[in-house]
């Protein structure tokens, strides 16, 4: 049904107020909690609403029949005028999600990745009784211990390394940069990289080999922005 649905990401601190003006759904933080999903009309349009926060702010994904997308878009833009609402594209989404260390599957991970090493151990429930696809592989990782980890980093001199640049140790490649951007909000160059588990500690120094250059970066394991999730969950 993908081609039949349009989807919008309404994100930002005013998103709840804007959404509330367009729907009878109770959008309060208690009634519509983070990671919850609801079905409701928005501006009269039947929608599936997901409260998620890929960009790291309070936000909602609205999925609706494509034939009604223009109406919904116009209604949202009009309702958000007082808040200074504006459309935003994929590039700012990439910077914003990187500030939160939200991974892009397929870019920050690959077929060899696993959630334990990709800094998402909370998503793995090895203690549940039911079997699930991948249990054996995850138990094997748990048993052998973490070899590599996906971490955030800040480049000391502000240079934005190429995505795919190598992480080197004694001039030997030991990892790779998966994402990198300059964050105007943080006024720093930030990124994500796979590094040996021994280097996956806050403050650890890593060296990036990028097009003949050597860049020094510092590891950070917590999100660069709103690490306490107050904006996201508030």
């Amino acid at each position, binding site marked *: *049904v*993908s*081609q*039949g*649905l349009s989807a919008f990401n309404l994100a930002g601190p005013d998103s709840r107020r804007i959404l509330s003006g*367009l729907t009878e759904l109770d959008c309060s933080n208690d009634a519509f909690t983070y990671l919850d999903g609801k*079905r409701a*009309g928005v*501006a*009269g*349009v*039947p*929608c*599936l609403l997901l409260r998620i926060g890929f960009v790291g702010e309070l936000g909602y994904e609205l*999925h*609706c*029949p*494509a*034939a*009604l*997308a*223009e*109406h*919904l878009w116009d*209604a949202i833009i009009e309702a958000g005028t007082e808040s200074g609402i504006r459309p935003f594209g994929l590039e700012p989404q990439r910077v914003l999600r990187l500030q939160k260390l939200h991974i892009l599957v397929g870019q920050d991970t690959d077929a060899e990745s696993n959630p334990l090493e990709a800094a998402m151990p909370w998503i793995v429930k090895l203690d549940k009784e039911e079997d699930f696809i991948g249990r054996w592989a995850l138990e094997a990782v748990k048993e052998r211990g973490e070899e590599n980890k996906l971490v955030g980093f800040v480049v000391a001199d502000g240079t934005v390394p190429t995505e795919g640049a190598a992480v080197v140790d004694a001039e030997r490649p030991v990892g790779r940069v998966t994402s990198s951007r300059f964050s105007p909000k943080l006024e720093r160059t930030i990124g994500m990289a796979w590094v040996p588990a021994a280097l996956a500690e806050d403050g650890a120094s890593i060296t990036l080999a990028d097009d003949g250059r050597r860049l020094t970066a510092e590891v950070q394991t917590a999100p660069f922005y709103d690490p306490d999730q107050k904006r996201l969950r508030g």
Partner: protein
Amino acid sequence: MSTGAELEFLSPNTAVTFDGAAPWLRSPIEWMHRDAGAELGERAGWRVVSRYGDAAEEANACRDAVGIADMSFLGKLELQAEAAVVAEIVASLAGGATPAPGRAILHEDVWWCSVTPQRVLALTPPERTAAIRTALDHAGGADGRFASVLELTTAYGSNAVAGPLARETFARVTALDLRPERFEPAAFAPVSVARTPGMVLREEGHRFVHLFGAGYAAYVWTAFIDAAESLGGRAVGIDALGAADA
């Protein structure tokens, strides 16, 4: 069991007036029609292309060559279940007729198109989409059956290709054999058209319906208009389609 209620948000006809504004249902390529000077009318909540300008020219194209019309407003409801269950449900809603691969059943303005023995696509006039969906939901959930009903109205784009050169137009974009003796009225085929997955229904005479992924609507429209214009055909509004049947 039916999944209808859980996926009701897929149904565009469940939109309601809000704050005094009634949502219009729009074709995925309405912007192309507007750019082409289309006059837009209304049908069951949909904005539809009535004509682009000279109605007589469009009728002539359908009568003498080929006309391509955007029919995105057609309802598309997919029923999936075991073959026997599908046959039973379709028979109950289509006057007792039994679906057969390669064929479609017309009953009370609804086309029941057999994609596979386990999968039937109902093509409905927009005025009847909600009622047919409700009927399918009820039939699918009756007697402990296991069936799924999905509203795919906006997932598929749909064009009418009408006129004596409709087959020639299709011949430029698909290998499907549409000769009258091989593709009779009510014939239906899932097939690649313009190198995208699609379905073709021959309604009657020189009139066909082409279904395709809505995401390809602009591409498909461009490919068909290009083919039609090389044959003396053109884009037409729905007002002109009757001429193809005359």
